[in-house]
């Protein structure tokens, strides 16, 4: 079995890719997918620590993160679709009504 550092490294790289996608993407749906990527990266960390310490509590946390991710995805996509219906765009650089 590979060491804990390898799993943490994969998780760190995935998280950074997710942040990168959120920062460079102009499409709201792609931003969503990148947020899911970041949640998955954190889940890998939790499962790795939980497995390497022989403690199930970390996996409970992953379970709750999964539930919150599902809720976030369904509400978020509803928001994107509502914005698209009123504003006819999914481009987040054009949704700037609240910009000062």
């Amino acid at each position, binding site marked *: 079995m*590979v060491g804990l550092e390898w799993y943490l490294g994969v998780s760190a*790289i995935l998280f950074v890719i997710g942040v990168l996608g959120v920062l*460079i993407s102009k499409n709201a749906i792609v931003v969503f997918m990148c947020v899911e990527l970041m949640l998955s990266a954190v889940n890998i960390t939790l499962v790795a620590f939980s497995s390497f310490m022989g403690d199930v509590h970390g996996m409970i946390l992953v379970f709750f993160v999964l539930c919150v*991710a*599902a809720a976030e995805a369904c509400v978020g*996509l509803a928001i994107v*679709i*509502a914005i*698209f219906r009123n504003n006819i765009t999914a481009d987040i650089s054009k949704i700037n009504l609240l910009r000062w």
Partner: protein
Amino acid sequence: MELTTLLFYFFSLLTIGSAIFMVFSKNIVHAAFALMFTLLGVAALYVLLFADFIAATQILVYVGGILILILFGVMLTTKGFTDNLKTLTTNLRPVSVVMTLVAAGMIYVLLTTTWPVAEIAEPEGTITGLGTLLLKEYILPFQVTGVLLLVAIIGALLMATKVKHQQ
């Protein structure tokens, strides 16, 4: 080299490679399918970590649920023209530099820290422990999560249904 080590390298390369493809893909449908491969790779990593229940939940919730939801979102926000499926990127170069630095910093920290690792035998399965913990110690968060999901369903329905505008 052990088989599990080889599998770990394969699945982590699959995960990271399709994540990079997802971020830099010009076509949003391709990005969604790359996300599917990423999530499947993450589920395989969970299996390699002996987290059987979490891996199954990952496949059911992410690949079976959230990804389909995202594909529906793609279909509903593109008006049916393939030209609009293109995604644009902004600030690519500075963000890439900063994120590479952040990744290097994180990997440096995790390599120089000594993590407390318990030498454990291969567990037989996590479902029993998880179920007992969920219904004993974590019963309140469990119920609150149920309420959260209910509220999310109601909120999504309210926002996605058509609002009658007063003329």
